[in-house]
Every structure is written in C-alpha cells, then in structure tokens.
C-alpha cells in the first residue's frame, strides 16, 4: 500500500463530486444561463448543468468564465453562456458559483486531508501496537522459557548438592574407616611382633631338638642300647611319627614365618593406605601406590585373573597420598568386579606432559552407551540391590577432582573398558586450595 503523503496534489475532480456542484450549476442556469459547466485546468468539462447536457458543449463567443482556486492556484473555471438579455445576471451567478466552488473545494480538501492524515495515523499506530504486542508476546515467551529452564536448573543444582552431600558423607566414612584401620593395624602389629619373633626362636629351638633326635637315632643304629629299650624307643618314634615331623618342621616354621610376614605387610599396607596423615602433601610414587593398592585388595581379585602391569617411569606426584590410594582402589576394584572368570586387567602408568596418566583396562562387558553419563554419579550402580553401593566410582572421581585431576571412561570398540586417571605432577590443582 502506497502511503499517503501529506501535501500530495489533488485534482478538483478528486475533491468535489458532481452531486455537490450540481445545485450551484442549476442556480446559474436558473439565473438565465443557456449553458454552464465547470472546466479543469486543461479546459476539460468536469461537470455541466443538466440542460446543457452535451458532452462537448459548443464554445461560443458569448461565454464568460470565472476562476476556481485550490490552494491559491487556479485549477479550473466556471464557464457560462447567457441567453439574450440575461448575460449580466448570468455573469453574476457564474461569479458567485465560481467562488462557491472554490470555497467548497477548500473545505472538501480540508476534510480529505484531515481524514487521510487521521487514517494514516491510526493505521501506523495500529501497526506499532501490533508490533509492540508481538514484542511483548516474544518477551513473555522468553520469560516463560526462562522460568521453565529455571526449574530445570534448580533441579540440577539440587541434584548436585545432593551428590556433594553424599560425597562428603562418604569421605567422612572413609576417614573413620581409615582411623579404624590404623587403630586395628596398631593393635595387631604388637602381638604380631611377638609371634614373628617367637616363631623364629621356636624354629631355632626345634632345630636343636631335631639335632638331638638325629643323634639319638644314630645311637640306635649302632646298637648302643639294650635291645628291649631300643625297640621301645623305635616303636615310640614310629607311633609319634617323629621322622615325618622332623621333615615337616622346617616347612611349618617357614610357612608360619611367611604367614606372619604377610600379616605384617598387610597391616603395614593398611596403615599406609588409610593415611591417617592424609592432610600433608607428599611426594607420591605412583607405581608404589599401585602395588600397595593391589596388595590391599588382593583377596578381591578373582582366581585366575591375569594382572598385567606396564608402569613406565613416572616422576613422583606432589599430592595427598590418601586420595591417590582412594582413587586407585576404586578403579581397581571396579575392574576386578567386571567378570568372574577369564578376567584380564592391564594397569598402565606413564607421564604425559605435566600429568601422570594411570589407565586401568579390563576385558569386561564394557559400559552401555546409555549409562555412560551416569557412572560417576553417587548411588548409581549396575549391581544388584545390596551388592553395590554405587559409591566407588563417584568417590574415585571426587578424589581425582580434589587432586586437580580427572577420571574418564573410554569404551574401546573391541569391548571392555578403560578408566583413565590423570593427575597433575606438580599437585598445583585444587589440592592446595581445599
């Protein structure tokens, strides 16, 4: 739609209608005009009185005309011809008619301009209202969307808070377990000291007795005893199976010694693992930590499992050893639980840039795609109810984060799963801040 421009030129014919002009022309005719008409600026007849009828009226010398103005400009004329003797009256009437047409044109133009301006203003205002309505709608829509996402955000945050709470709880649990372990280790260590030392002494003592027995037997063979006594002694030795005992004793002692040593080592590992002095940042040997963790959970490794180590040269990590142990423990335990038979676990450690990278790879069933984003969430477990608490990986994840590192799970095409623990070598992450 082409906008109306205020000031646009208007032709007389646009402004006035035949019906408006007709009474004036009739009045001129009544005054005695033989013909009367209104012409435009190009002398084209716009309107004519009824009785002058003809579309192209004859022009004759007796015609008189008076100008019609619009906006100060002559835009046409009222042309009239008088009958014989009526020319003065016709001239007066035509002059009045011309002024009347000018006046009518002026007020009609006024009305037209007013109306057109008004219509344009209303249309534009309406357009602007529609536009602002659309904007309001859009903004309302965006607010509504915001509200909806806000709810989702709140839910998300609440979930995170819940997770953080449970991790905190788990941490405290771990800490008290650590203290308990440290206490138990201390209590066991003292008696184990006696046991180990006494067995060692006992071993030496028994060795002496075995020597005495051997000497006794030599005497028996020489026949240095009365035959009856020798027979009794032989039967006694046979009944008591002294020969077998003497052969068995070194093994027994050795095995007991080994058992005691194992107890000692487990206790020592338990102490080290529980890290009562967890708060202190130390230089941690990643390889050593892996070995120790493996020993701690040795009883959890399914029989027949192939554990392969590929521990490259990793500079010591400056961090809190307890957390490293926690992360490793849960990653290894997770790997050892992936299958009961034919399990192969590969543990790799290497330095990559300024990080230590530890990978635990298993040949288990892998992680279904749909739960990959959930595995590090607390209480998420694929195990049966009552078997897994769903905390292991979340605790490992949290420990790694606290150390300024990260854990990610990778599922290779060929199956199984690789958990990659990355730790900063300098320990410059969150560990210092927290």
């Amino acid at each position, binding site marked *: 739609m082409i906008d109306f421009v205020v*000031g646009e*030129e208007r032709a007389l014919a646009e402004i006035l209608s035949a019906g408006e002009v007709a009474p004036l022309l009739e009045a001129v005719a009544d005054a005695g005009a033989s013909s009367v008409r209104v012409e435009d600026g190009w002398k084209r007849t716009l309107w004519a009185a009824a009785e002058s009828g003809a579309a192209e009226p004859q022009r004759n010398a007796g015609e008189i005309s008076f100008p019609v103005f619009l*906006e100060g400009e002559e835009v046409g004329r009222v042309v009239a011809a008088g009958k014989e003797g009526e020319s003065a009256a016709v001239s007066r009437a035509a002059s009045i008619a011309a002024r009347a047409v000018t006046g009518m044109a002026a007020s009609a133009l006024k009305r037209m*301009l*007013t109306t057109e*301006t008004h219509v344009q203003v209303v249309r534009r205002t309406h357009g602007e209202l529609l536009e602002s309505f659309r904007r309001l709608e859009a903004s309302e829509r965006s607010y509504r969307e915001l509200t909806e996402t806000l709810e989702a955000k709140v839910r998300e945050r609440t979930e995170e808070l819940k997770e953080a709470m449970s991790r905190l709880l788990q941490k405290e649990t771990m800490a008290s377990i650590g203290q308990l372990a440290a206490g138990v280790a201390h209590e066991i260590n003292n008696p184990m000291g006696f046991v180990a030392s006494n067995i060692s002494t006992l071993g030496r003592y028994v060795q002496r007795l075995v020597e005495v027995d051997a000497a006794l037997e030599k005497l028996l063979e020489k026949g240095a005893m009365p035959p009856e006594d020798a027979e009794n002694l032989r039967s006694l030795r046979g009944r008591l199976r002294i020969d077998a005992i003497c052969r068995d004793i070194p093994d027994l002692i050795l095995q007991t010694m080994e058992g005691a040593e194992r107890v000692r080592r487990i206790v020592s590992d338990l102490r080290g693992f529980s890290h009562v002095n967890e708060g202190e940042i130390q230089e941690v040997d990643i390889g050593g930590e892996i070995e120790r963790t493996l020993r701690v959970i040795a009883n959890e490794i399914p029989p027949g499992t192939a554990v392969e180590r590929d521990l490259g040269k990793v500079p010591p990590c400056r961090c809190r050893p307890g957390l490293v142990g926690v992360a490793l423990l849960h990653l290894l335990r997770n790997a050892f639980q992936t299958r009961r038979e034919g399990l192969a676990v590969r543990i790799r450690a290497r330095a990559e840039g300024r990080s230590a990278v530890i990978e635990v790879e298993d040949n288990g069933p892998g992680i279904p795609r749909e739960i990959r984003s959930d595995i590090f969430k607390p209480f998420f477990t694929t195990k049966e109810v009552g078997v897994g608490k769903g905390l292991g990986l979340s605790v490992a994840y949290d420990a790694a984060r606290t150390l300024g590192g990260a854990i990610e799970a990778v599922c290779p095409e060929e199956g199984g799963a690789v958990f990659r623990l990355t730790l900063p070598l300098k320990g410059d992450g969150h560990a210092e801040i927290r």
Partner: protein
Amino acid sequence: MIEYDESEKRLVLKIVYYGPALSGKTTNLLRLHDLLPKEGRGDLMVLDTKNDRTIFFDLLPLLLVAPSGLKIKLKAFTVPGQVQHDQTRKAVLQRADGIVFVADSRREEARNNLESFSNLERNMALVGLDFDRTPLVLQFNKRDLPGIVPESEIRPVWDPTGIPVALASAKEGWGVLETFRRIAGRMYDALDRRISLRDRHGLGREAFLGRLAAR
C-alpha cells in the same frame, strides 16, 4: 519533494515548521500569510484545531512561475508539537525539502527544545530524510519575552554546527520572513544542484527568493 513533473512543468515542494508544542509554528505561518503579497500565495488552511492547538497541521501554499514556465508550488506545513501526535509529525515530515525548527527562546523551554530536536532527528531517519543533506534553519522564537537565552549563548553552540540560526518574534512579526528567506535560500541551493533551476529554468537564486518572499 512532493512532485516534479518536467512534461507538466510542475514542481511541488514542502517546507515543514517543526518544534516543541507552543513554540509558535502556526503563528509563523499566520505572519507569513500576512506578510507575503496575495498574488504569490494561497490562503492559510488551518486543519481542525482544539483550544487553538494544532492537532493535524496548517498549510500555506506559495506559488511562483519560473521564466521557463515551470510552475513552482511551495507548501509550508506546521506539525503538531505535542508529544502524543508523533505519528502526525512523521506523516507531515515525509518528503520535506526544507525544515524550520522553531524553538522557544525562554530558558525554561531549553529541555523541551532539545527533546523536540531529538524527535526531529529520529523522525527524519524514520521517514528517510538525510539530516546532513536536508536544508534546515533554526529559529529562536519569542525574542520579545523576558527570561530568554541571549544570542551570545546561542551562537557559540549552533554556529559551529553550520545550521543557520534566525532570531524572531512571530508574535510581533519580525524575523519570520528572514527565517523563511533563509530556508528558501537553502532549498534553492539544494534544488539547483538537482534540477538546475538556473540553467534549465532561468530562475536565479535572487529571483527565486524575490518572487517567493518579496517584502
């Protein structure tokens, strides 16, 4: 430009008197109507008003014929100054060839002047008029009243902008014709560049001004 028809030998131009409410735009046209000889002008058309306030616009048509026979019609309009009539102002402003901004010289009106001037700049952009290329004259009206900003304060602000400043009292009738001559002169310069008024129509600057705004 409202219309330019070479074959019809017709040129219709538009001047718009813009400014805040009650700064004297209609009074400018009334005085102009009184000051200009009857031959060169039409009657002042005042569209329906309410309490003497313009709500549509006023229109004063002016006429002249160039030696080439080119009929030049110049329509001077006022806009309603009141804030709520912004759409009408936009409608009137469309295709303007020259703008007279009528400011109220009184100190307390400075803020209204400024707001109206910003409104002019905004509306010019909205109707597609280039502010830097549209002839504009600034009239400080109501110089007859007390409490007006003195010329010594006006000049340093406006002279550097290149916008001509005219001082007037439309009520007393002085400065109105001068303002009109200033804007007409600027419009002539712009028109001459576009349609060669002098070379093709034999109409020089002085003749243009003389016929349009003879005293």
